[in-house]
């Protein structure tokens, strides 16, 4: 557990970066500090490992005040990941990851063995171990940064905008993998981001801060979307929060899934026309995995080929959220959303109307978190 008690940071010129912050990051959970630039979120984070000293108030690490500790020793207990990874350019990847264990007095041999394990754990091939940071892409460097922070197996991790310096596709991947990793290791993490979507996606709980270093609201992501504490939070969380809150509502059988007739590649135009509902027919492969939608009148005498497929639809998992289901319906050219099971096999289709009906009956639905 990391606890802030009335923590204030004021600079000699009178600016107050953090103002009387009270906050508790529970053990094993991922707590996110989010807010506009200048809200003191990074300052708050850096006060935990005392890269910045608080002006007043106390920060506790598992009920011990950090103020009495030796700063260097305190920092060795806390993993730290920053925006551009901050790797040591003069050390190989494996030596970067082994830094902390060696600093803590472990043998070089042992530290490297552990580092190699971690490199693979964060999704990098072991062959990267002997490379230098410049030989890696931004996303790969960021993975090394995470591995380095984990190397000493710290109970606490601080992450400062860890995924913001990479492109959106890589960012999504890193976030997904990080969630998976955290579900395995269960560290007590505080992460800073300016990206509310990232905060809602990753956080067990989210602390929204406002300019002037004050805490505006601390809540679970779905609570933040459904009941923002004030106008500032509502505005910061964003306009389409109603739609996005559906991302936290499990479908859990609440939506009626309709039967959908299917054809396979190679089918004749006649067969496709016979199976089609309206202008569109769903095409699947031999194991009933959806391939795309096709229009029978475009097949024009021949047989159904890949080039006839419309790929715009996004399949939703039956176990997914309302938002995914609605998105599947709206993105499909037939306006019927494809629903699949956990193996990616077709269950049936839903219409937007069906999903909306289920949403209107929301009190019966189980919320995700």
């Amino acid at each position: 557990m990391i606890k802030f008690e009335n923590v204030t940071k004021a600079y000699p010129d009178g600016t107050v970066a953090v103002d009387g912050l009270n906050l508790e990051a529970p053990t094993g959970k991922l707590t996110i500090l989010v807010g506009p630039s200048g809200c003191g979120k990074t300052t708050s984070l850096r006060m935990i490992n005392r890269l910045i000293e608080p002006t007043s108030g106390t920060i506790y690490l598992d009920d011990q005040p950090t103020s009495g500790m030796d700063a260097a020793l305190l920092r060795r207990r806390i993993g730290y990941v920053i925006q551009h990874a901050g790797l040591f350019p003069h050390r190989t990847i494996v030596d970067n990851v082994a830094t902390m264990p060696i600093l803590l007095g472990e043998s070089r041999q042992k530290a490297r063995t552990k580092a190699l394990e971690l490199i693979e754990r964060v999704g990098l091939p072991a062959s990267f171990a002997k490379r230098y940071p410049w030989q890696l892409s931004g996303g790969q460097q960021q993975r090394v940064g995470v591995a380095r922070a984990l190397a000493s197996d710290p109970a606490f991790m601080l992450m400062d905008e860890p995924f913001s310096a990479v492109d959106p596709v890589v960012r999504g991947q890193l976030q997904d993998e990080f969630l998976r990793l955290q579900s395995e290791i269960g560290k007590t993490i505080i992460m800073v981001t300016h990206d509310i979507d990232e905060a809602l996606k990753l956080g067990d709980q989210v602390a929204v801060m406002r300019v002037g270093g004050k805490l505006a609201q601390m809540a679970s992501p779905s609570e933040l979307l459904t009941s923002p504490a004030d106008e500032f939070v509502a505005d910061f969380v964003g306009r389409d929060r109603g739609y996005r809150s559906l991302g936290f509502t499990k479908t859990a059988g609440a939506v009626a899934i309709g039967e959908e007739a299917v054809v396979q590649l190679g089918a004749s135009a006649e067969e496709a026309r016979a199976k089609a509902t309206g202008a569109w027919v769903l095409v699947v492969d031999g194991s009933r995995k959806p391939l795309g939608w096709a229009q029978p009148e475009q097949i024009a005498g021949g047989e159904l080929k890949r080039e006839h497929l419309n790929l715009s639809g996004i399949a939703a998992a039956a176990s997914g959220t309302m938002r995914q289901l609605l998105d599947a319906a709206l993105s499909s050219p037939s306006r019927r959303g494809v629903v699949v099971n956990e193996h990616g096999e077709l269950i049936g289709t839903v219409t937007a109307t069906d999903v909306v009906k289920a949403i209107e009956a929301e009190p019966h639905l189980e919320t995700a978190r």
Partner: protein
Amino acid sequence: MNIEWLGRQFDTIVFLLGWHVLLTVIPLILGLLIALPLGWWAHRSRRIYPLLVGVAGLLYTVPSLALFVLLPLVLGTKILDPLNIVAALTIYTVALLVRVVADALESVPEDTVQAAKAMGYRSWQSLLKVELPVGVPVISAGLRVAAVSNVSLVSVAALLGIPQLGSLFTQGFQLRFFTPIIAGILLCVILAMILDGLIILLNRWLTPWTPKVVAS
């Protein structure tokens, strides 16, 4: 070129070359050793940086012949004492390298320094294990310039009669004889190239991690 003269003077030339190497290399090493802490100090303090770099710049503007002549006043040495040359070249080397060392430490990415601190490196550990190693390419670039200039500067001392390769120039002038002059110039250039090459090799050995060898 009179090869026969060179053969006869071989011992003398080797003696002069030896002195030239000593007068070049000793100030280079002394200068680096002095510039490292001074450069670190300049890097650490916003107020000290302009002061140290300013003084270094002023020292650098003093022409070498003038410095050779003025140092005996300060050191209490004789005008012919090679110590004057060592002191003068050490001053030039320090003047050049103070700023280089400060800039080298400044060139270490802030993220890297912060990461070292956050992982619990104490400041001396961070300096020795992270900041200085990462600053090596910049420092060695400065060291190369200092080494090559020192070779040329040492030869000026011949005008005061201190023996080194420059003595070949004055001798050639007095005898109106080209051979020693050309030999002296060639030896100076070769010595400069060798020192330059050694520093490049040293840098390459210390920085296996750089994307490519730092171009000159």
